[in-house]
Each structure stands twice: as C-alpha cells, then as structure tokens.
C-alpha cells in the first residue's frame, strides 16, 4: 500500500511539473498547445539516450532534455506563433505526430515500438535514488522548483507582459512590446520545464516506449490545467491530484482492462465537456467575466 501511494505521489509530482509548465502557455499567455506530451516524450528520450549512449547520467540527461525540449518547441513556435493562435494548435498537434513517428521509426536510436530499457536511476551526490519514497522527494522537489520558477516568472515584468498579451494582444503590441518574441520565449521555457518532467519519468520507470507519450497524454495534461483552474498557478497541481486519482479509483471496480482504459478517457472527456458548460474557470479558478468573444 505504501509503495502504491509512493507511486501515486511520484506521478502527481511529474504531472504537476507538466501541468504547471503548460499553464504558462494556456493560462498566462493564452496559447493553447497540444504538444506537451510530445515535449514530455522528447525529454524522456533525450535524457534516456544521453544516459545510455553518452553516459551522462541523470543530471547531464536533465540538462540535455531541457535543451532539446526548448529547441523542438522553438522549431514549431517560430513559424506558427508568427501568424495566429489557431495555427499553433495545429502545429503543436503536428509536433506530436512527428515525435511519435521519430520514436517509432528511427529504430537505431529509439528502438522503435519496443522502447529502451535499462535507464539508470538518478544519482544525487553519490546517493542512488531507487526507493519509491526517495523518488517521491525528488519528484516533489522538482515540482516545487518548477512552481517557484513559474511563480517568479509570472510575477515579474515579463509575466505581466504575458498576461497583457493574453488579454489584449493588439494593445500589448501598441505599447511597444515584442509580442512574437515574448510568446516564443515563453513557449521555450514551458517546454524546457516540461521536458524535465520527461527526464524524471524516464529515470523513474527506467523504461520508455512511444505509447507513453501519445495524443491522449497531451489532452490529459491540458485537462489537468483546465479542470484544476488555469487562472491560478496552483490550479494545475490540484488538477493533477484529482485526475490521477480517477484511474486508481477505477482499479477498485472489477472492470476488465480493455474497458478500463477507454472508460478512463470517457470520464476525462465527459469532465472536460461538463466543466466547460458548468464551470469553465476550473476547480480553483477565479471567475473571469467572459465578455471577450472572438468575433
């Protein structure tokens, strides 16, 4: 039971990193991204390969993951954020398709569908983290670090520009802010943090394969943000606690595996629709007057 609880907490930590970093885009900049699972996957693969092929270990892998994640994000953000928000959704969706194709088909590097086993556990100043509860501490520490970075960022002058862009892009531009540059920078920061979550995951499970980073993961991470409440930094963390508990609760019902997996998605989908109809600001959200209409 304690090992079970530890696993739940590690995953909450990892998903909290993903959701808090994605919220920089969704909640604070008004950019909807479906690429976060791809970034998560890029982080996991980059870190695993750095450890397995280059012998860089956990810390080197973490740095490589953050760098590669930010780079991949820039590659998509620079063309698509130049134009308009809607294009970025499609482009970010596309990044996921490409990342999945690379993971499945570049078999020399990624070993395709079979995945890569044998990723080493992290080593913190000579202390190997391999007990579940030790990993809880590591994962929660990284979640706290991400939270601190995002808190600092959103409460800085840069953060205020972000929120100005979210609320009125044209006004921000008229005030002389370089809107495009700010958007691209925030996309890269968000991805660097998200890729670190991938690194933590890879070294925790010690085995990765492409199916861990599929589309429903992207929608799941976005759900954590939306259902938790994107107007506050802590919202996505609440989302992670609540939504990760749902599959655990389903395990207590005697449902065959083939039904349980889609049923989980059905519940997430129904929750998303219901929240949009009844409480679009999420669990923790402040109600924002919804007066701005696209047209």
């Amino acid at each position, binding site marked *: 039971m304690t090992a079970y609880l530890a696993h739940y907490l590690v995953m909450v930590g990892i998903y909290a990193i993903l959701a808090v970093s994605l919220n920089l885009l969704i909640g604070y900049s008004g950019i*909807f991204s479906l690429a976060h699972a791809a970034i998560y996957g890029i982080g996991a693969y980059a870190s695993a390969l750095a450890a397995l092929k280059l012998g860089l270990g956990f810390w080197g892998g973490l740095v490589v993951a953050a760098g590669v994640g930010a780079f991949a994000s820039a590659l998509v953000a620079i063309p698509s954020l130049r134009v*308009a928000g809607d294009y970025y959704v499609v482009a970010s969706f596309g990044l996921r398709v490409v990342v999945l194709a690379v993971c499945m088909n570049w078999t020399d590097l990624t070993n395709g569908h079979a995945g890569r086993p044998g990723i080493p556990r992290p080593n913190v100043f000579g202390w190997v983290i391999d007990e579940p509860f030790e990993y809880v501490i590591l994962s929660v520490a990284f979640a706290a670090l991400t939270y601190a970075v995002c808190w600092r960022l959103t409460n800085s002058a840069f953060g205020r520009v972000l929120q100005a862009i979210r609320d009125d892009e044209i006004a921000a531009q008229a005030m002389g802010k370089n809107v495009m540059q700010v958007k691209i920078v925030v996309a890269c920061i968000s991805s660097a943090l998200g890729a670190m979550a991938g690194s933590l995951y890879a070294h925790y499970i010690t085995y990765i394969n492409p199916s861990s980073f599929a589309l429903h993961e992207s*929608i799941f991470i976005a759900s954590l943000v939306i259902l938790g409440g994107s107007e506050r930094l802590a919202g996505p963390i609440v989302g992670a606690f609540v939504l990760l508990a749902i599959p655990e609760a389903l395990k207590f019902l005697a449902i065959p595996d083939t039904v349980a997996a889609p049923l989980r998605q059905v519940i997430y989908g129904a929750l998303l629709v219901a929240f*949009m109809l009844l409480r679009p600001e999420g669990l923790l959200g402040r109600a924002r007057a919804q007066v701005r209409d696209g047209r």
Partner: protein
Amino acid sequence: MLGLPLALAVAGAIVAAAGSGLLIDRFIYQPLERRGALRTTLFIASLGLLILIENLLAIVFKPDPLRLEVGRLADAVRIGPVYLTWLHLVSVATAAFAYLGLMAFLKYSRWGQAMRAVSSSPEMARTVGIDLRRVHLLTYAVGSAISAPAGILLAMDVGADPYRGTTYVLLASVAVIMGGIGSIPGALLGALFLALLENLGVWKIASEWQSTISFGAFLIFIVLRPRGIFGRKIQSAEI
C-alpha cells in the same frame, strides 16, 4: 454486423453523422456560444467530445479495425500506365460529387445563401431576418453529413477503428489552412496538394514518414503564405 444492403448503410451513416452534429451543436456549442464563451472554451469542449466519443466507440465496438467488404470494387483497373482499384475511382467521384454538391448548395439554395450571409456578417444577416441559431445548426449538420462518406470510404479501403479519426482531423485542418480558411475550393486544393505530397514523398522515402512530410510542409507553408492559397489576409486580431 446487421447485414443491411450497402445503400441503406451509407444513408444510415450520413443521417447518423448529421444527427450527431446537430445534437452536439444544440446541446453543447450553442449553450456555450449563448453565454459568450471564449473560443478556447469551445475548443476544449470539442477536444473533450473527441476523446469521449472516440472511447465510447472503442468500448462499444472493441478497438480492432472494422473493414467493410467491397467485393468487386477492390478489383484493379488500368488507366494508361496507372493501376487503380475501382474503390479509388469511387473515392475520387465521391469527393467531386460532395464538392460540387456543396458549392451548388451554398450558391443556389436559400439555406446555403443564408449560411454565406451569416459567415460574412452575422449582424447584417440577423437584420435581414435570418435565424442565426438555425443556420448554425444546419451548418453543423451539413458539415457532419459530408464527413460521413469519407468515413465509409476509409472503412472500405483500410478499415475503420475508433482512434483513426484524429490523424484525419489533423490532416483536414492542415488542408483547410493551406487552402485558406473559409474557402471551399481552397480546402479541396489543399487536400489534393497534401495527398500528392504524401504519396510522392513515399515514393522516395519510407511510408512511416508520411505524416512527418505533410507536417513539415505545413510549417514551411505557413511561413511563406500564412493565409493559404485562397484565403483573405488574416490578422491575428480576428483569431
């Protein structure tokens, strides 16, 4: 499963698609729009619907691909140096029929004209007595109905499974953006271009990279011509 004749099955599929489009608009999108919800809210609701419906289908019909038997349609035909199946020809004919039908509907029918009026100026359309809600419902129904033949052809060609839709949603959005949002000839050209590119790409590169090719082309395309082939010049303020 039921052994119904094909024509009846096709009609059923189109009615079912139009009906679900209607229901989704009536009970989800319209309440949201009435409340003046943000575009993101609508988009998230649609994502929720996507995974909800996809996985309900997976529970009801099992996730394995379902293939429609087509019999003689799978036979090859030779046109000059090119080998095709009858099914391929039927697909092209269906697309042409859907395209011409839609264009004629928008141009000549009262409802089609109302749709175009709402699209160009909702306020003006309301002033001249067009019921926006009904036009909206109709648009969703027509849009959904047209997607049904694509699904049927797909089920005949490679088989249908609950999770296949998202890839096609992505490809369709890419085609629409490439063609220019709001232009039907543009969407057709975009689709044609994308399909050509993927298949020419496969000729030189392995087929697993199909989606990577089309997505790469998309990124280059939006840098060079963000408004698409036939699109009006877009301003980010509109989006």
